[in-house]
């Protein structure tokens, strides 16, 4: 009897051990096989499911996107131009509500692109990109000629490489009213400063180091700044402080499911290794609705300082630092690499980490709010005034 009982129990036990859910092996999105729309959809949906870092706070119902769009992609049976247009439309509709304001879909076969944050802003305000005279007009004709002390003006433009693209890099510095040190630059690529912009930064940092005790204030103008290299955070802000401080936190994905995250790691500014000074005077950062990414990170780093102040308008809202997805098991990825070559069918540009400001607020998708609101207008520009810089000067020299 005992042997029979034991035998039956063993059979029953072994049968039960197989009752787990199937653990399917999802490859990286880039390596996902298939050259047809249903496979590309599956690859994209899985890639987003795994790599998108904002699922913890994003209200987009990604499961619902699967249910709605899978049948639509299943209907795209032919790979031709009309179907490609439909596919791009579907991908855009799926992602238009995502809060990641770096997020961009690059359709490699057609050269088209879709950026949800741009789409949403234009839906809310068709003049979002045209109703400010900054940076081009204000920078070209107003600041250098009206505000900067003529004898101190240094400005120049170089070409730099940002994420594989050559972009113009403009920088302006000088003093205002003799005791306010001003710096503008169009991107965070200070380490690439060439023969034209190098003197701008040399002047700014030399003046900072040699004359910081006599300065009434410093203005860092990041309006219209498109962001760039993280190394510049310590290089710029770290030269104005002599001790390390925390201004926020970042976290990454650490698993393949949507809510798998690392703990929050402190985002810090360290005194620059090449030397720094302890600036006591007000440091004002100017930023606006076109200040993106590293310019927003820098804005938050400055506004955290006891002598820091952010003047301007709410920023773009792309705060999550980003790099290659292999670094932090999340972020940007390519779809269809196996079938379409290294460029793939589609490149998904998205953050590698989520940023939280020191006060616990996450400004992704909504932008960093200013301490003092000021906005340049076309009317003010035509009458020769930069209302934002005026507000900064008034704050420093009341």
């Amino acid at each position, binding site marked *: 009897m005992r042997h029979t009982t034991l035998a039956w129990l063993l059979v029953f036990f072994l049968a039960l051990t197989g009752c787990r859910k199937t653990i399917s092996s999802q490859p990286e999105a880039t390596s996902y096989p298939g050259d047809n729309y249903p496979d590309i959809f599956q690859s994209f949906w899985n890639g987003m499911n795994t790599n998108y870092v904002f699922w913890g706070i994003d209200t987009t119902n990604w499961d619902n996107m699967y249910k709605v769009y899978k049948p639509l992609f299943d209907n795209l049976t032919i790979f031709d131009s009309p179907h490609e247009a439909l596919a791009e439309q579907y991908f855009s509709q799926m992602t238009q509500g995502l809060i990641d304001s770096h997020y961009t879909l690059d359709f490699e076969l057609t050269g088209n692109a879709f950026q949800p944050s741009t789409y949403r802003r234009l839906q809310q305000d068709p003049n979002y990109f045209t109703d400010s005279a900054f940076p081009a007009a204000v920078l070209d004709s107003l600041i250098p000629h009206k505000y900067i002390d003529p004898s101190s003006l240094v400005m120049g433009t170089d070409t730099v490489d940002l994420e594989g693209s050559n972009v113009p890099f403009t920088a302006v510095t000088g003093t205002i009213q003799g005791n306010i040190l001003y710096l503008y630059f169009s991107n965070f690529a200070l380490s690439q400063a060439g023969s034209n912009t190098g003197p701008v930064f040399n002047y700014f940092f030399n003046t900072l180091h040699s004359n910081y005790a006599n300065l009434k204030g410093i203005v860092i103008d990041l309006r219209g700044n498109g962001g760039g290299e993280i190394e510049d955070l310590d290089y710029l802000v770290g030269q104005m402080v002599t001790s390390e401080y925390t201004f926020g936190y970042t976290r990454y994905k650490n698993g*393949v499911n*949507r809510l798998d995250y690392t703990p929050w790691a402190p985002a810090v500014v360290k005194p620059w*290794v090449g030397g720094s000074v302890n600036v006591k005077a007000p440091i004002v950062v100017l930023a606006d609705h076109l200040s993106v990414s590293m310019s927003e990170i820098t804005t938050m780093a400055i506004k955290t300082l006891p002598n820091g102040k952010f003047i301007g308008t709410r920023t773009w809202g792309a705060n999550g630092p980003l790099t290659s997805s292999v670094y932090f098991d999340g972020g940007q990825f390519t779809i269809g690499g196996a079938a379409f070559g290294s460029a793939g069918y589609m490149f998904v540009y998205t953050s590698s980490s989520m940023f939280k400001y020191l006060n616990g607020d996450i400004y992704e998708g909504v932008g960093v709010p200013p301490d003092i609101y000021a906005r340049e207008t076309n009317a003010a520009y035509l009458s020769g005034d930069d209302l934002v810089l005026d507000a900064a000067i008034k704050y420093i020299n009341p």
Partner: protein
Amino acid sequence: MRLLTFGCIATLAFLLSSLQSRGQFFLGVEGGPNMNYLTTSNASEPFTNYDGMRGWNIAIPVGYRFFDWLAVETAPTYIQKNFDIVRTGFFTGVYQKNYNTYVQLPIDLKFSFGGKALRGFLDLGGYGAYWAAGRIKGTEANILNEVDTAYENVNPTSILGENYAYSYNQKYVFNSTRDNRMEFGLIGGAGISYELFHIYTFYLEGRYYRAMTDQQKHYEINQAPRYNDNYGLTLGCTVYVKKLFSTLFKKAHS
């Protein structure tokens, strides 16, 4: 208080009834080390391994021996089911050790065989467990605490040469959307026991706890499930209550 009183009376009644019956009620203590593995899919995470981690468990086995070859047993257990997420290659140094504590209640049938004193046995059964607490300890590369590679002459050979490490050791915060704190599974074990004075039984057992439920709630389509697989080595001792009491009574009266 009423519940405690009722529990004590019930336990006493059970003990007394065991004294009168043919079977033998036993209880004891056991414990030992274990090795836990998290079985999941992470093929989409390059240079990332989920490794097993050691833990330990302690329990109070309580059982009833119907025949010399068959007993039923349960054992309120404190058990750790730990695992390690480790990055490799250029990312070596980045890891997260996950220490998870479960309160577990198994119930199993124990089939024994062999001689009078030295016997072998097999355990088969199931368990329910509650994920009571967790702790995470690890190191990650801090994206907003960079090593200055742009302005300094450095040649990083790992991610921690590009970004300073952030090390943490903190309580695991449960997420009610993600974490499934109830776990059910199967038990299989085999061991040897030695009976001393017909009262005490010492045993050494290898035991496998196979979770049949996901460590996560089902909160997304195509979710990669996670299962604990726990392999333990347990050293324990039980006493037959009836025989122990009889011996004590005899000593008291002699």
